[in-house]
């Protein structure tokens, strides 16, 4: 089966932001209900990778009853192969700030935070300058909304929304149980909207041009455009805005080096797609009627035939073993055992059938791990082991 959607470039995110004052003024003049409807009809889904409908998130927070609410911009961009959020914050910061203030207006929040990963410390001075200018304008126009940067300190797991709240509250970044969900019980136990940097930047586009302009891009269930961070064995690594829904074959045609063996879609926590499945794989959220759809936070890593998939998996597992917060056993022990397991098979200390045991372990992790980290290790593990079993063994 072949997916027929073409690769189409788009240019919204990095388009100039000089009109942010207009967009802010115009949006604040509309009712929260109108703005929520606009977002819902755009069908924008979260761009961090999980794909929760943004309009619904804002609606639930708006409906939650509380005097204090928060808007948080998640800039803890840590997924291997993702680097688009940094680019947004350095090139079009006012889009993000505007979107945060509009969100504040919609849900009734007066404070916003940008949780910036420690690795991006160098972004701080420029971003603070933008915040000062933004707050000055808010003051002038009597808009009561303040934004602060909160710095992370090098923990991948803090990109998980509830771990991020814990971190902001001065604790270890260990994810909470859900429910309750952040829309009702977020930072400091208050209703909180937490959106990825790119998601907020897209809401700016939607408030500026209207929902239809956004909805007309992409395909059913996967509307709009998305930034893709392209890296690995490609002649043109970088950040590209493309419409959702394209086939992976088209993507490889455009970005591959002519010898692409596999593409990792969605970073280490995503799926590895081997060459034989490029044509039947589309990039977008699940729910399409035919073929395979793979969601992504934008990470697209290409591997050519000079790469050993064993080394790739070994690198991912090392990453997960270090970044697992250690709170729940399936993830803490699971990541260690998977790493030791593939090494033992490679060295010939365990026979090849041991890989099947490890696959069962990833299934257990998927079912029992507390958060997305432990649950998603199965994605890359099973897609690599099943498609490149021979490389794992010898």
């Amino acid at each position: 089966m072949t997916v027929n959607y073409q690769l189409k470039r788009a240019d919204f995110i990095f388009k100039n932001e000089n009109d942010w004052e207009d967009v802010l003024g115009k949006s604040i003049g509309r009712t929260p209900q109108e703005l929520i409807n606009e977002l819902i009809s755009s069908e924008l889904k979260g761009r961090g990778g999980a794909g929760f409908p943004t309009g619904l998130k804002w609606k639930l927070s708006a409906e939650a009853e509380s005097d204090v609410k928060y808007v948080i911009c998640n800039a803890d961009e840590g997924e291997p192969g993702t680097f688009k959020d940094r680019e947004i914050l350095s090139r079009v910061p006012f889009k993000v700030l505007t979107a945060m203030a509009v969100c504040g207006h919609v849900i009734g929040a007066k404070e916003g935070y940008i949780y910036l990963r420690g690795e991006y410390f160098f972004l701080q001075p420029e971003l603070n300058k933008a915040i000062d200018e933004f707050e000055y304008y808010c003051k002038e126009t009597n808009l009561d909304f303040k934004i602060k940067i909160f710095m992370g300190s090098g923990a991948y797991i803090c990109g998980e929304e509830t771990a991020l709240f814990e971190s902001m509250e001065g604790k270890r970044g260990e994810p909470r149980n859900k429910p309750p969900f952040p829309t009702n019980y977020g930072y400091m136990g208050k209703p909180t909207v937490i959106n990825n940097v790119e998601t907020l930047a897209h809401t700016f586009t939607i408030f500026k041009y209207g929902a239809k302009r956004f909805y007309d891009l992409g395909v059913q269930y996967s509307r709009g455009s998305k930034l893709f961070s392209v890296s690995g064995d490609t002649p043109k690594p970088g950040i590209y805005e493309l419409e959702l829904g394209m086939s992976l074959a088209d993507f490889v045609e455009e970005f591959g080096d002519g010898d692409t063996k596999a593409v990792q879609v969605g970073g280490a926590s995503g799926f590895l797609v081997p060459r034989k499945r490029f044509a039947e794989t589309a990039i977008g959220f699940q729910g399409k009627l035919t073929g395979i759809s793979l969601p992504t936070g934008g990470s697209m890593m290409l591997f050519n035939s000079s790469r050993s998939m064993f080394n790739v998996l070994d690198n991912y597992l090392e990453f997960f073993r270090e970044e697992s917060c250690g709170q729940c056993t399936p993830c803490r022990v699971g990541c260690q055992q998977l790493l030791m397991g593939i090494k033992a098979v490679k060295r010939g200390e365990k026979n090849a059938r041991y890989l099947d045991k490890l696959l069962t372990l990833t299934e257990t992790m998927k079912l029992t791990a507390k958060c997305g980290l432990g649950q998603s290790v199965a994605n890359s593990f099973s897609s690599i082991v099943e498609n490149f079993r021979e490389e794992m063994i010898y």
Partner: protein
Amino acid sequence: MNPVSELIKNLADQHGRNRHNLLPILQGVVEQEKYLSEFSMIEIARELDLPASEVYGTATFYSFLEHKKMGKYIIRICKTITCSMKGKNQILLAIEDMLKINVGETTPDGNFSLLQTNCLGFCHKAPAMLINNDVYTELTPEKVREILSSYLKKQKEGIA
């Protein structure tokens, strides 16, 4: 007053003394001292009226909050997939060779520490590294030797 205690007091005055002010205070100490000693953690606990174990628990969770004495310049080489594919090991060898230390060690003069870290978010410009908060990308062994030479020179001239 001990200079570290004074630093902690100032940071608490600046950020506040609530639990949610803990991370910025820990970060402030690390920025100055390059690491969190047991003494610093106990002082922070005292200043914020928290159990020292809670401060220790938070402090040891984050990879950028070192709790071992570090050099003036902390070099962090990205070891995640793309940087690894694009020659991270050659960069590491060049640095080890130049500074005569291995990963996890600090030079005897206390100027440089060498560490590996997870994805820095510069996969399109791999391999990448951080020296304190400054990013260096598209490294080659030659390039990294030049960068380190400039740090060593700065160090010798005493401008740094």
